[in-house]
């Protein structure tokens, strides 16, 4: 017994403003393909093997070794154990992204082509017959891609890395540490202080000129020891400053404490998806402009 022949669906006419008409089901935008990850190259920063720091989109690494922490508050440094290194800028995130796009131009061009082919199900001749269709499809693609971006981090690539209440991140061994200034670090432990002690400590720790060093913050905490829960006291103080072998990080005159967030992979996903989004958006815009 043979299957009954399906009844053909009624075809919907679609109008391209200022041009001809065609049937809507002659082309389809495949939404699942828009969301699919691209096999794009790995972002440079994710492959970086050495310690790096990002503060307000500016990237840094450890540079020259110096005998001791520089007295000049404008000089950025990191002390690890007993060793002190100047912290030097190595570019910013936006520049690094541009370099990523220019260095991988050929591969990205190919990805764009594949992306458009995978998203559109239509006869190759259709846009040739209806030239206005390029612009219309390009526009629709852009709008679908944009809604995808807003579901995640918007277009703010730095937002993938930096969290509210932090000054930036430090990455070492593919692990991410949020950089929290000493005042914000103490704020997190508010419940461990009595209210009087807490407000006095906060005003001393957040003194702007000069900003107290971690050692000075630790000695402020020691002088208010009776106002802090005995269990919390060593945990707070030792994370800020324990002894001469404690680590210190100062960028832009602010002392920062690294707080573990997680593996770098978890950021890589968000970062790469935003780079992919840009590739997809550019592909859609280029398609919208029609054949060159």
């Amino acid at each position, binding site marked *: 017994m043979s299957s009954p022949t399906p009844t053909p669906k009624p075809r919907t006419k679609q109008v391209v403003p200022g041009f001809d008409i065609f049937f809507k089901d002659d082309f389809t935008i495949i939404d699942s393909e828009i969301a699919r990850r691209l096999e794009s190259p790995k972002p440079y920063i994710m492959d970086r093997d050495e310690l790096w720091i990002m503060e307000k989109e500016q990237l840094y690494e450890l540079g020259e070794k110096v005998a001791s922490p520089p007295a000049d508050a404008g000089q950025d440094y990191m002390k690890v154990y007993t060793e002190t290194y100047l912290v030097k800028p190595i570019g910013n995130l936006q520049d690094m992204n541009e370099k990523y796009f220019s260095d991988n131009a050929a591969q990205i061009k190919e990805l764009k082509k594949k992306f458009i082919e995978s998203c559109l199900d239509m006869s190759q001749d259709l846009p040739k017959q209806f030239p206005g269709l390029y612009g219309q499809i390009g526009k629709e693609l852009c709008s679908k891609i944009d809604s995808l971006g807003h579901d995640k981090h918007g277009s703010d690539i730095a937002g993938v890395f930096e969290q509210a209440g932090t000054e930036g991140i430090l990455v070492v061994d593919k692990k991410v540490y949020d950089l929290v200034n000493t005042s914000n670090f103490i704020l997190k432990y508010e419940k461990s202080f009595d209210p009087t002690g807490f407000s006095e400590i906060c005003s001393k720790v957040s003194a702007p000129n000069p900003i107290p060093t971690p050692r000075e913050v630790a000695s402020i905490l020691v002088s208010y020891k009776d106002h802090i829960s005995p269990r919390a006291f*060593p945990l707070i103080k030792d994370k800020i400053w324990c002894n001469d072998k404690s680590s210190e990080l100062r960028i832009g005159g602010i002392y920062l404490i690294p707080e573990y967030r997680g593996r770098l992979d978890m950021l890589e996903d968000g970062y790469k998806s935003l780079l992919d989004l840009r590739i997809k958006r550019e592909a859609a815009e280029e398609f919208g402009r029609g054949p060159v």
Partner: protein
Amino acid sequence: MKNTRDAKAEEDLLERLGKLLKCLPNEHDKEYTRRFQLQHNTFFQKLIPTSVLENELEIVEDDYLKSLVSLEYLTNVIFSERKLIENLEKLQEVLVKVTKGTRRMDIGIISAEIGLYALDKPDLNKTSLSKIRERYNARNIAPPVSAKPAEPYYIAIAKMVYDLVSDENKPELAKAAGKNNLKALVFTDSMLSYIDSAAEKKKILKTLKDDVFNASVYVVDCLRKEASVDKLKKYMGVSDG
């Protein structure tokens, strides 16, 4: 004050150690966030497995890292069991009780307990030694020839290891090609001050120059030969009364 040649030698050594440490696969990825800083976590991840890190011992600060390295070396290479740490945890309870909490565990007490613990172990004879040597070699991970030079962060971590070894034996660090060479050296060096016999000490130092593994095994043997409850009590600061 160091002269230029010493400073250069130290710099080269730290660069070499930094490269070794950077290349080591992590023992674990756990972050101990409550009290330890970034540098400690890197040190732990590279050198100390969680089975050793997660103990109940309260060790004095100056002896903390070298005790952990020594206990790791003993429990995972020499004895291949964690019981020594469990014994030390029980001993700590006694220490807290008899000193009313005024004394904490230190490397002297640990050395005396290692000696007593080794008394209950079969002799480190040829058969057991070859097994220990196998374990030692199996985990003596070294950096590949192609490894990149150490970055500043790892040179600082290398300094943490460098400072665990006495000045007298620091030159031996230059011979440490792999992870277990480092641990054996830190252990041997840490125990030297607690060997009573000057002749044995001399022999250990001589052996150390030729083969750090043999020196570490010999140290265990010496601690065992000199082991006594009185020695343990002496280090605990406890009198018979």
